[in-house]
């Protein structure tokens, strides 16, 4: 039957939720790293017991944690021995240094502003090697480790893609989406708020913007600008890596040619503003979004928490409401807070800023809360285990 392990990052710690394949009875472990902001946790597809976590604090900065036993125990990856007298300590698993000359990006007042590392938003383990992980940073940059998180190097070619025109939105200039192409190890897609989507075809050496077709009528002076679009999330089904789905600030979009051109598939959604988007594990044309009223009002329209599902790859959407609050609900669902499992009956999960984590064991037809009262949920990932 299999089982699932849900990795939840919250504003005040991490939680691990486990259940068998029925997904009815849950064990809750945590808080891990209590009191710290846990932006993201994700397991290696190759070695599911290898889990990486981004732990951050406004006081003490960035820490990377790693578990090699499925989240039972954790440690910083360097495992640094005490240095000999006169040697500098080797605690470098949280050392994220921009490569070469730091460079500048556009600041809120239109001037150029130097890059400043703030935190890691997203960790994406390699599809083939548990020691390789990509990390998305704020201020936007992509880092890579090849030694299990002991040290990190920036893939600085990304910032050659018109970095001077990137400008942070109100939520910060974070690199939040990293998609690895399972059929082409040299191809990676990333997305940045508020710069847009980018693609490399040479394993991160060079990058180019892939934002043609995006329109930002109220956010950019040139609605068709090459960069500057506030992409909130991109999703891909592993069987069709050239087909991408995007939740933009406004608009739900799709591309059938690896981002060369995007078309609007918002269709009959009650609002095309939102943050997460995900794809059914077994149906590449079935996608999920959570409409939010607007950029000014980050809560569901009419106070009704509704997941919307399209079985046609967009344009035609149906509201999924069974088990979700349909009155007086004013939570948000953040961009990294939705995931799907790959059990025979696909499970769909999402967490809210109100601290609920919901699970649907039937592809979204019905929902149940796994937990109701966690701190604000930043991220949800799920591992499908034998």
């Amino acid at each position: 039957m299999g089982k699932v392990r849900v990795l939840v990052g919250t504003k005040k710690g991490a939680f691990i939720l486990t259940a068998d394949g029925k997904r009815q009875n849950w064990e809750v472990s945590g808080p891990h790293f209590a009191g710290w902001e846990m932006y993201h946790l994700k397991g290696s597809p190759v070695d599911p017991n290898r889990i990486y976590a981004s732990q951050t604090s406004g006081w003490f900065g960035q820490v990377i944690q790693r578990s090699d036993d499925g989240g039972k125990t954790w440690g910083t990856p360097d495992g640094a021995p005490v240095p000999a007298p006169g040697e500098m300590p080797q605690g470098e698993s949280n050392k994220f240094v921009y490569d070469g000359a730091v460079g500048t990006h556009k600041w809120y007042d239109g001037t150029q502003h130097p890059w400043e590392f703030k935190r890691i938003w997203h960790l994406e383990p390699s599809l083939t090697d548990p020691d390789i992980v990509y990390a998305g940073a704020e201020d936007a940059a992509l880092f890579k480790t090849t030694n299990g998180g002991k040290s990190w190097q920036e893939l600085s070619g990304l910032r050659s893609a018109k970095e001077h025109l990137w400008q942070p939105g109100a939520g910060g200039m974070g690199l939040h989406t990293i998609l690895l192409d399972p059929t082409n190890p040299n191809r990676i897609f990333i997305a940045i708020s508020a710069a847009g989507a980018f693609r490399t075809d040479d394993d991160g050496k060079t990058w180019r913007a892939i934002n043609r077709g995006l329109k930002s009528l109220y956010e950019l002076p040139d609605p068709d600008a090459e960069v500057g679009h506030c992409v909130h999330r991109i999703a891909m089904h592993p069987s069709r890596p050239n087909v991408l789905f995007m939740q933009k600030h406004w608009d739900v979009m799709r591309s059938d040619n690896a981002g060369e051109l995007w078309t609007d598939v918002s269709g009959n959604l009650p609002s095309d503003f939102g943050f997460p988007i995900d794809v059914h594990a077994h149906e590449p044309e079935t996608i999920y979004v959570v409409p939010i009223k607007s950029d000014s009002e980050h809560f569901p329209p009419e106070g009704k928490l509704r997941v919307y599902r399209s079985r046609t790859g967009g344009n035609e959407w149906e509201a999924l409401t069974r088990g979700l609050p349909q009155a007086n609900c004013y939570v948000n669902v953040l961009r990294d807070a939705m995931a799907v499992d790959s059990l025979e009956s696909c499970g769909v999960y999402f967490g809210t800023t109100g601290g609920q984590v919901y699970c649907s064991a039937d592809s979204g037809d019905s929902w149940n809360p796994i937990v109701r009262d966690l701190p604000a949920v930043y991220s949800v990932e799920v591992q499908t285990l034998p």
Partner: protein
Amino acid sequence: MIRVVLPYHLRTLARVEGEVQLDVTSPVTVRAILDALEARHPTLCGTIRDHGTLKRRPFVRFFVCKEDVSLEPPEYQLPDAVLSGAEPFLIVGAMAGG
């Protein structure tokens, strides 16, 4: 023996309970204490002061003998009460919230 008191989150990160006691060679400066602390607990690198620049993180404070020495230069030599272990070197997370 220098006594160092860490804030709660750094105690859990470094997996220490209570104070940290360090042998620090003279002259005992703020920098020398932090060097010794990071050498003993490398996982604290980057959490009190930045990698590379070694500048104190903005919301971290250093207190000794009821004085805030956060704004003193790294070469600031600590008073005899700290050197003798009579008083600890406190690393504090700055107050936040309302």
